């Protein structure tokens, strides 16, 4: 009978403590892998938010700040960019395409983004994926709106419904642009990015609802729907804009010329670099999480060490019997290592199983509550490495009781003490 089989049977004989030990290890492994997964997925989600855009331009501020309010729709712009400046920059021969953003209004807590049809052509997320419509069409009239997947789902909106936009970005606003209700003409497919939580309207629509608001509040003379054709709806300011260049080589040159733009204090950022900086600010929290889950694994394994060590004294008879039938101290050593190894491997396996069970439960919730898409993918190379480390540590920890049992079996021999 192989020693491993003997170890299995011996463990089965002490199954209550063995199961508890395996559970403790499994729990810690689930936590470790879970934290790791949430970390990488969040990071990936972040990185996936914007793709194919070479520069993001906005009023001069911090690059993370600009990225947050323009792309992630978190926080507000400190200042605007004039339409004149926008025109000036996109006329640069290096610019292939541009998408203007005008932010500042909301509908029931969802940000309203004023932009152009080009947004649906050039804005890309994930791995250069295009935005796709699940329903309806792209806007082409000032009071048309295209809504993100989450907006449609949460508010139960469908194409053809009318919505009223509120001034300001708060969930509850006291000044509504109810003179000009918008009609939903399209609903986008889910992307797992802030696009899902955005209501897209034409720049002219943003201009129209603020007609007569020159000083920041309604002064009378607001437009009515039938007047839309009678006034010029060319915007005077926008919040930010995305640029795509005809050649990547020109990125830094254009960035510098924008940063040194004399007429207005604006800046251009490379989204990839800003994402990195944004992510590095979260590094501390990320590291702390990993360290904590690492410690949980250590405590799980220490628990195993304790159980095996305390069992040793009760098992001196078992050792003496094995010695009396010819087992050498080396066999006793292997037996205990095998035992620790079996517990660690079982713990790791159960940990993986419960991780996937948990993912199955959490996946819809995470998408629903945080808009984070947690993928149900195979174990990554890194996760397998982590598992291997846990199992190796289990075997390594097994050395302690194995060594003790080895010493004990040498000195006890076949005398049964206790």
């Amino acid at each position, binding site marked *: *009978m192989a020693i491993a089989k003997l170890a299995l*049977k*011996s463990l*089965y*004989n002490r199954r209550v403590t063995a199961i508890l030990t395996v559970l403790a290890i499994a729990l810690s492994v689930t936590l470790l892998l879970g934290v790791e997964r949430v970390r990488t997925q969040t990071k990936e989600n972040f990185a996936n938010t914007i793709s194919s855009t070479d520069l993001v331009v906005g009023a001069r501020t911090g690059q993370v700040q600009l990225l947050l309010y323009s792309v992630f729709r978190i926080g507000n712009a400190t200042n605007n960019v004039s339409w004149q400046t926008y025109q000036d920059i996109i006329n640069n021969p290096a610019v292939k395409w541009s998408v203007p953003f005008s932010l500042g209004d909301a509908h029931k807590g969802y940000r309203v983004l004023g932009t152009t049809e080009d947004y649906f052509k050039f804005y890309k997320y994930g791995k250069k994926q295009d935005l796709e419509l699940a329903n309806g069409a792209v806007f082409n009239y000032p009071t048309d709106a295209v809504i993100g997947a989450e907006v449609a789902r949460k508010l139960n909106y469908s194409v053809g419904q009318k919505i009223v936009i509120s001034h300001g970005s708060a969930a509850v606003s006291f000044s509504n642009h109810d003179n000009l209700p918008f009609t939903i003409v399209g609903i986008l497919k889910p992307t797992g990015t802030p696009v899902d939580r955005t209501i897209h309207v034409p720049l002219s629509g943003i201009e129209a609802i603020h007609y007569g608001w020159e000083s920041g509040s309604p002064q009378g003379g607001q437009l009515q729907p039938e007047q839309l054709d009678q006034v010029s709806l060319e915007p005077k300011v926008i919040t930010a804009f995305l640029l795509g260049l005809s050649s990547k080589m020109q990125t830094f040159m254009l960035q510098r010329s924008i940063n040194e733009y004399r007429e207005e204090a604006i800046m251009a950022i490379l989204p990839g670099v800003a994402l990195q900086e944004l992510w590095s600010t979260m590094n501390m929290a990320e590291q702390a999480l990993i360290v904590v889950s690492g410690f949980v694994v250590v405590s799980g394994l220490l628990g195993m060490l304790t159980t095996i060590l305390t069992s040793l004294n009760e098992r001196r*008879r*078992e050792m*003496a*019997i*094995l010695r*009396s*039938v*010819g*087992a*050498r*101290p080396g*066999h006793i050593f292997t037996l205990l290592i095998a035992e620790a190894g079996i517990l660690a491997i079982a713990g790791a396996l159960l940990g993986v199983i419960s991780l996937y069970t948990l993912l199955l439960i959490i996946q819809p919730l995470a998408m629903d509550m945080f808009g984070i898409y947690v993928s149900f993918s195979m174990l990554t190379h890194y996760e397998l490495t982590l598992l291997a480390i846990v199992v190796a540590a289990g075997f390594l920890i097994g050395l302690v009781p194995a060594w003790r049992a080895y010493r004990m079996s*040498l000195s006890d*021999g*076949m*005398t*049964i003490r206790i």
Partner: protein
Amino acid sequence: MNNKTLLRIQDLKFGWRENQPLTLSIPALTIAQGEKVFLKGPSGSGKSTLLGLITGINQAASGSIEILGSEMTKLSNKAKDHFRADHLGYIFQQFNLLPYLSLIENVSLPCHFSQSRKAKALQLSGSLEQEAKRLLDHLEIPAALLHRPVTELSIGQQQRVAAARALIGRPAFLIADEPTSSLDTDARESFIKLLFNECDQADISLIFVSHDPSLQPLFSRHINLDEINLAAGAHNGHR
């Protein structure tokens, strides 16, 4: 019974600590192969120490212990382990069996640690399981008990299973360390008779340790440790 020597002890001296009175000092002791020896001595007389020396767990201070022609005091620990696995069967006072193994598994256990015993067992019955069943049958363990957990057996039955385990693969000799002390008188005699039968059949020597004089008449040879041990008496007060 032949006249080959199983065990020859000469000028054996052993003390637990240096510069302290010796526990054992045996000028000479010889046991022939096939002999059944009753080793007696009051508790604390050094019986366990002597067994430790014979099995190679304790290291003699001086003197010689020769078993089957091998000088135990000169063997490495590893060699002693192998020697023991191949040539010795051992029965404890009680709780001999591993509770997590079946009867058959318990009995065939020694064959997993000794190639020669495995070979002999296979030669006898063709498979370890068959040999274990044969021995259990000879030791009057009912076939109905074979698939019961070890813990459901009576102590007498457990000791007989332990005897089957010690006998499997026909080791040269068997040490039984007070194997009957937890049995009642009837069970004692029947246990010893069954053990004798098997030992005779397989030409296995038996060293039977006990302090129960009522069993003595059953044996052909008696050794009183106090009589052969020159260090006797020195420790009797506190060991």
